[in-house]
């Protein structure tokens, strides 16, 4: 039986259908990516799952029971970050912990542990408005994690973070997944989801345009890209073979190929002309490319 099961969730605001019969499930711990452009329906879906918004149709269950505050211990990092600006960090974290049913002592201990893990202990007695945006985001994340939730829902967790904090959050999410947490992470940054997600649901205009295991999805597309780095410019050679160049930078070029045969031919021509490849990689399409292709099809 699926642990988290979303079945036909639908929500309309007036005439506009924001989410149209979305279904997916998470059977085992790990990260599921919920991806789509802004306005695709990611946040509305999450709000319906958590019961913040009432679905017009469909259901969201955890181990077969409707998801409520009582039926599952969930942690939620909303897209719109919000903490009390004039309240001390430790006071508000303890407050959120107590609201989740923890004792004052447990909430405080858990806050301190997570603050240490996310390296924000120095701000413990500061009011939140004195913190940088990135540190405020960490505090909000601690508020979502304070009660050690089973199901974790992160809505655009990386938006607004600098590279150092992004790296720290990456490590933290990886740690959570390794600790058998069920994580649903929404993002419009495909590379982020690609890095973490085992499974994904791709939304566009409220509809599911792709879903399933990420590896299987990518494998289904086969080898579609060839990345070549060499001492000489090989774009003219590729053009002779009819390969379309999709990316070029100072180091390397990337071409579209229709199969492994194209790559083999390219390698032979290069060696014939004495061009030694420094890098020669045949790969599956990126999630970004898949998304663009799917959005194009859905239009």
């Amino acid at each position, binding site marked *: 039986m699926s642990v988290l099961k979303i079945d036909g969730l639908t929500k309309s605001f007036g005439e506009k259908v924001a989410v149209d019969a979305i279904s997916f499930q998470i059977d085992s711990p790990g990260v599921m990516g919920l991806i789509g452009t802004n306005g695709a329906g990611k946040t509305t879906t999450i709000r319906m799952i958590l019961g*913040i918004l*009432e679905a017009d149709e469909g259901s969201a269950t955890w181990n077969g029971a409707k998801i409520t*505050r009582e039926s599952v211990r*969930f942690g*939620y990092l909303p897209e*719109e970050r*919000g903490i009390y600006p004039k309240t001390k960090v430790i006071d508000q974290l303890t407050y*959120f912990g107590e609201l989740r049913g923890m004792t004052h002592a447990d909430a405080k201990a858990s806050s301190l542990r997570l603050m240490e893990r996310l390296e924000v202990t120095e701000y413990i007695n500061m009011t939140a408005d004195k913190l940088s945006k990135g540190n405020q985001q960490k505090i909000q994340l601690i508020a979502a994690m304070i009660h050690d939730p089973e199901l974790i829902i992160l809505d655009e967790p990386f938006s607004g973070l600098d590279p150092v904090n992004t790296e720290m959050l990456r490590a933290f999410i990886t740690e959570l997944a390794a600790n058998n947490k069920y994580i649903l992470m929404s993002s419009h940054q495909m590379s982020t989801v690609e890095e973490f997600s085992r499974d994904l649901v791709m939304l566009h205009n409220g509809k599911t345009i792709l879903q399933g295991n990420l590896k299987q999805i990518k494998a289904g597309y086969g080898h579609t890209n060839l990345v070549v780095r060499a001492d000489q410019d090989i774009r003219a050679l590729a053009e002779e073979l009819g390969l379309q160049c999709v990316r070029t930078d100072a180091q390397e070029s990337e071409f579209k190929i229709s199969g492994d045969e194209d790559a083999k031919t390219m390698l032979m021509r290069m060696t014939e002309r004495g061009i030694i490849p420094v890098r020669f990689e045949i790969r599956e399409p990126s999630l970004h490319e898949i998304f663009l292709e799917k959005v194009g099809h859905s239009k």
Partner: protein
Amino acid sequence: MKSILTVFKFTFIEALRKKAFIITTIIGLVLIIGACFVPMVAEQVENADLFSDSEESKTLYVLDNTDGAIPGVQDVLTQMFTGTSVEVASEDLISEYEDKIKKDSNNAMVILEMKDNAPHIVLMTKSFMSGLDVNTISEAISPLYISSVMKTQGVSDDMIAFSQSSITSEVKFMGSMDLSGYVVGIAILMIMFFSIYYYGYSVALSVASEKASRVMETLIVSTKPSHVLIGKCLGTGALGLTQLSAFLITAAIGYQLLVPDDFTVMGMPLSLSSFTAASAILVLLYFIFGFTLFAFLNAAAGALVDKMEDLGAAMMPVTMTSMVSFYIGYFVAIIDPGGLIGTIAFYLPLSSPFIVPFKLLNSDFSYTEAIISLAILIATAAVVVKVTAGFYTKSVLRYGKRLKFKDLKGMKE
């Protein structure tokens, strides 16, 4: 229930720590202590009119230019200003007296002269702050002149004494309103309005700031929105009661320690004897449920806005309602506590928190009537809490578009 207590505790402690609360409490306490000093100061100012009560040596010069038309002036003034040296002055030294008076406020001079065939009194003091009242001196001296004239006209001593006697008088109030009840009633009415308005506004401000700062989304996945609302209103109400209690306890201590026992207002003693334990409990209940009614209405207004700058406009209907209710209570209290409007205001839940505490002290009505009025208030407050909790739940995560009545259907917690 635990989450309500958690929100209550957090709201109470956070608000208690705020500088605005600390400053308003300190200002309030200072004003109350200052007000308790007023009767003492007023009494001292009143006593200062007697000129003689000061321990410093004082001199009152008396220059009589009436050729003995007013006999016994010096004796009367000596009796009047005990401890003051009353000296007969000489016309030749008048400039010296003037210099003495200019230099020292403990010196003054009374000049009696004839003007249009009648005595005329001139009082010379350093400034208006001397406290001497020429009318008081005139009232004391006039009988001397009148009796002197009557005597020269051959009127007997008995008749002269009789002509200077006055008829004794007293006032009896047949209603239950006396000055103490009126003053205390108006004070309670004002305090009720201030508290209900100020703390109700605090609730709206708190709800709106949680919505504007987006904390709300974190809150309502943690506990039921109605629990957040109830805890918040209870916390703010408890804070109001705490501040009010601090004010009232300070006022009671100040009254005991600083207000003179014989202090009177317009000749009537100020007494709090009409404020019984039963009436105090009723006032407390009216505060609790009146505050509940307006606080939840304010919370609904706060839940409507996305930005803090829109709060004033959203609160306008509730503010107007509370203002109108207060003024009904206030004018009924002043003009016609027992009339038709007073009776309606007594039972109307929006105005009863303002008018009933006043009527408790100033009007004849049974406790049955008060309990009926209180029951109506409690029932209305309960309905408002129920409706507002649903409205709040629907509104707090709604940004951009205002909530419509049809959206209230299917409200859930």
